[in-house]
């Protein structure tokens, strides 16, 4: 497997780019790349040529920390440090809804594979908020239970600070990563907490389920490791190390054979899952890489794999994945 750099856009945003996602293709247009940045804008990009699609979308204060596209490709959500989620029409840019669940702030968010629910990592509220995508009403709050204090003297045990969320490909499970490194698994249908996955002791900023094996979960942590968990069996299948600083983001290829990670060490790495070893390291970014995203399959005549990465260096890079 291999990554080949296709194109890079310098100064794609005016400030650090913090979030990236692919808007799936619709009947009328191919998939688009969606980015969010500290410059408080959200921008859309045509695939391959990476030319700007439409004007930058405003409507946020403070930096945009995450973006998520609806599986239909019609709508997307972006969230910023001011704890607002803005849901908008991808093609027109018009705001559909503004979501807020104070005092919960907003970090990672993901639409479920069917597109009925938006899961939002609620930061210090130690919960995941679930929003109905038709009515844009809050339908559930999944609370991460507080861990029992290991030492009675330890007063510092507070609720988990939830940073990231991921849906299993069948939509039945939700995983969330928190600042203290624990990963929590929820049964979505029953809105019930199942168990924790341990192994990280530093923030898990990104996690993703394998598309080929719904039990397998990949997590990226500030401890520089990528863990591979069996989310049902509560066991650690493997750990991959190689980044020299925090691993900020992880995404799995549509074929489930590789994961890509971005790190504070300014590199993007491609990991071969059969070898459990780094297959390639891309060094084109000059600052922390905050987001990596494989393009979802589908769309007219698009067969080749694409990976996009965004960085604090204000640039977007696009790679061919084969």
């Amino acid at each position: 497997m291999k990554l080949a750099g296709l194109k890079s856009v310098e100064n794609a945003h005016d400030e650090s780019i913090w979030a990236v996602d692919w808007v799936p293709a619709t009947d009328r247009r191919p998939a688009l790349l969606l980015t969010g940045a500290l410059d408080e804008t959200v921008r859309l990009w045509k695939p391959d040529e990476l030319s700007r699609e439409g004007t930058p979308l405003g409507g946020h204060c403070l930096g945009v920390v995450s973006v998520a596209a609806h599986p239909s490709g019609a709508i997307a959500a972006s969230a910023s440090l001011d704890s607002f989620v803005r849901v908008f029409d991808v093609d027109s840019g018009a705001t559909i809804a503004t979501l807020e669940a104070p005092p919960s702030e907003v970090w990672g968010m993901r639409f479920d594979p069917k597109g009925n629910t938006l899961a939002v990592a609620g930061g210090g509220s130690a919960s995941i908020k679930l929003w109905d995508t038709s009515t844009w009403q809050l339908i559930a709050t999944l609370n991460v239970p507080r861990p029992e204090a290991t030492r009675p003297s330890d007063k510092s045990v507070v609720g988990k600070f939830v940073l990231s969320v991921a849906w299993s490909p069948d939509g039945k499970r939700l995983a969330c990563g928190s600042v203290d490194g624990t990963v929590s698994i929820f049964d979505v249908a029953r809105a019930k907490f199942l168990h924790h996955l341990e192994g990280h002791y530093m923030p898990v900023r990104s996690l993703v389920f394998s598309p080929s094996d719904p039990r397998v979960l990949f997590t990226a942590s500030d401890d520089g490791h990528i863990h591979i968990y069996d989310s049902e069996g509560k066991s650690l299948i493997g750990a991959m190390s190689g980044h020299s600083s925090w691993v900020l983001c992880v995404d799995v290829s549509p074929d489930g054979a590789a994961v890509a990670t971005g790190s504070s060490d300014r590199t993007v790495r491609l990991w071969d899952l059969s070898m459990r070893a780094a297959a390639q390291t891309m060094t084109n970014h000059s600052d922390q890489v905050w987001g990596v995203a494989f393009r979802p399959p589908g769309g007219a005549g698009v067969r080749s794999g694409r990976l996009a990465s965004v960085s604090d260096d204000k640039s977007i890079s696009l790679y061919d994945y084969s």
Partner: protein
Amino acid sequence: MACVYIPVQNSEEEVRVSLDQLPRDATDILDILKAEQAPLDLWLIIAREYFKQGKIEQFQQILEEGSSPEIDEYYGDVRYERIAILNALGSYHSYLGKVETRRREKDEHFIAATQYYNKASRIDPHEPSTWIGKGLLCLVKHDLTQAYGQFKIALDEVPSYVPALLGQACVEFHRKNYSDALKLYKTALRVFPNCPAAVRLGIGLCHYQMGQLGRARQAFERVLQLDPENVDALVALGITDLQTNHADGIQNGMEKLQRAFEIYPYCVMALNHLANHFFFTGQHFLVEQLTETALAVSNHGLMKSQAYYNLARSYHSKGDFEKAGVYYMASVKEIEKPKDFVLPFYGLGQVQLKLGDFRSSLSNFEKVLEVHPESCETLKVVGHIYVQLGQTDKALESIRKATRVDPRDAQAFLELGELLISTDAGAALDAFKTARSLFQKGYEEVPIELLNNIGVLQFERGEFELAEQTFQEALGEGIWLSLIDGKFGHRNVESSALAVQYRDLTLFHELEEDGVSLELPLYKVTTLFNLARLLEQLHDTEKANLLYRLILFKYPDYVDAYLRLAALAKDRNNIQLSIDLIKDALKVDDKCPNALSMLGDLELKSDDWVKAKDTLRAAREAADGKDSYATLSLGNWNYFAAVRSEKRGPKLEATHLEKAKELYIKVLVEHPGNLYAANGAGVVLAEKGQFDVSKDIFTQVQEAASGNIFVQMPDVWINLAHVYFAQGHFALAVKMYQNCLRKFYYNTDTQVLLYLARTHYEAEQWQDCKKTLLRVIHLAPSNYTLRFDVGVAMQKFSASTLQKTKRSADEVRSTVSELRNAVRIFSQLSAATSYHFHGFDEKKIETHVGYCKHLLDAAKVHCEAAEREEQQNRQRLEVARQVTLAEEARRKAEEQRKVQMERRKQEDELKQVMQQEQNFERVKEQWKSTNGGKRKDRSHADDDEGGHSERRRRKGGKRRRKSRKDRYEEEEPEYGHEEMDDRDVHPVEDRENDGADDAQDILQAAGLEDSDADDDAAGGLSAIDRRRRAWSESDEDETAERPESPMGGEKGNSDENQESGDGREGQGKSNRYIESDEEAD
């Protein structure tokens, strides 16, 4: 059967005395000799016979009787015989004196000998044999010159007197004038061709000394022909045979020596050589026997020395160093000049080195070097001793010389490399590489230590791939290869059991059960450990982890592996696991200073202050105060205690600071090059406000710290930046913080980013400050303090914008939105406090909210005013634009007219020149008037606009002039357009009076409020005070991260085997001069 006949006096009869049946009592013979008045020569013959038979007393008795005064009287005219007897006695005493070792007796013998000779001379001063005797006496007394003189007198008496010639030859031989000696010997031979074989022996020896071995052999062989029993010749021939160094030659030589030994078992030379031979054949018993005999019979220093040497060597090779030392010493004592026989010095040196007496050993080896300055082995040994004595320079000199003398000596290069490791890693690496290639060229196995050292040096130079190759080459085949290839790494681990994964060895048990060989020879452990360290450096933590565990599986006492595992766990923030691992290490060695130091560090990290202090103290004691790490840590502990305590007492603080300083300086005294101690001292000085001094220190430390991959000292950069900050050099501080972030932290360190934000804040760069803070929030989402800080920054920004005398409506509008954000942030925080304890007062947040709201109200008024103003501005601009347009139109019309006129002019030109000129005049006139009119219009417009800024006018004017030059070719509308733009951007100067007053009031209010905030934030207090105040409001949550871990680097010393010079990781310790981090309101 030899016999003498003593004539019976007054008769023809003779008494037959059989020489081999001489009576035991010499008196019997003497009686006969006296009674028969036997000729004196008979006396001498009989005495000589006694002597030959070893009956010295009888010999002496006869001769003394024979030289008594009665004899002198009686045989008064028998001169020659009397002289001969005296000379015999003299010669005998000379011999006694020569053999005698005690000085007094020796001298007595010599005196006696002299007396006899003098007496002989008195009888006949011309008798040459007396002179010969005297000469020999001088020879024995080593008075070569006088001996030569005596022999010369003898020669003057009797030219070509053979004994004198031989004597002179002997003198010359001793003077090492071998060719002269040879000439003399030859002369003697010519004069007396039938002389004893010994003369030829002399010739042979001369040839031998002159290196003419063939001739020497001939001479010796001739001697043997004449005298097959001549021991000296046999020995000499034997030695020459031995020196051929061929098996045959040695065989022959040995046979000859043996024959010599059989003929005369007391020939020291033969004994020594035989002993030497048997030493090499390993027959130590024979060696001892032979040398003991040699020692018993020898009186010659060099010979004895050789005998002792043989004996010493024999003991040396048997490992009896004490005895060997004694005999070497004895051997050395027999030698006058090391040049004569240098080997025992070498042996003695070796034994002394072995017994640890370096200085004596060194002096002996130096004696060897005086004789053989190019002896590679000796140079190496001397180098080695200098190392032991700590004189690295001299050691280097010796070893360098050794490598120069023999550039193929791998061992020498190895030693050179080891010497250079600490001073010049590059040169050391080169030396090691040379050694490696020499080993390879010689098809020898390269020692693993050498490869290990090469690997470590490459590691230290950052050549990680090369280092990995080298380590793998050193390790060869083994289980580790499979581990590195990741063959056994994938074992499902129960998630809950993962906590102990670092301590888990079941993997290896399973592998062993599966029949996989887990062979790990002890001598490879160091290299394996280094390889693991390298993998760690390459962030291949998982593999490193496996290797460390393999080491522990095989060698559970390998403390360093525990410590590295602990460091790995610590890096991953798994503090509990790390502590457990260290406790494992402490189970192996509960006094291991490294483990204790690390434990203390971890305890500090988990905020266990009291425990940490105890642990660090224990570490210090365990290391006898020699480990500066523990001392430094205690220094840090004190420093943190000084700046952290919530119930701050200035007295306590001063004590702690003083203690910290004391500890740092203590370390510095011991190790003047300790960067961390210097940094610590700088910090304490900075705390005390001595910024200039501390800046110097930090700058030096920073310089020193760059250039070694094992020294990572971001702290000193931060400290330097803090000093810049404290001195108000904000731009420099910003640069420094940014570089530090980039260089050391991949921009991830929130603390440093916070410092950066703070600097921007002080420099009133509000937007930079805000952006930086937003980045920090993004990096550290759970830190709510940061949100508060952002709120404050936005509030401050808004307030300062509103205070500005010139501001556009846009600015005011953005201020309003900023204020709304600030309000939102504060409100969120206040809501969040319901389930979080952030360490700030809810009331305070309320105050901020209130203030921001107030500002917001004020801003609304401002905003309206600004918008109104903008509106008016826009109208004014519109008017102005129309005026300009009108003017434009007018001008264009004029221009057209002008063009027309010009055209007409040209036509006219063709017709009439005069008229043309007139025309021209008129055009000129017109031109002028147009300009004037325009200018006037313009000033009108300016008036209308109410006097725009100076700059614009200037710009406009310039533009106009330019336009004129361009003969109005330029598009005029563009000009107007630009002016509009200008106007838009420019701050509006005049505003309505009442509006301004209104704004002023609010501003005053805001200013007052603001200055209150300022007082807290930045008022007259020093930065440190501010921080303290901020801290005093802190809560548990924050303090956990505020006293940034004092321990920078992991402490994991790679190996106990220092000789192998493995990757010894610096005992990293660091501390930060912690500046106020958050915005105190």
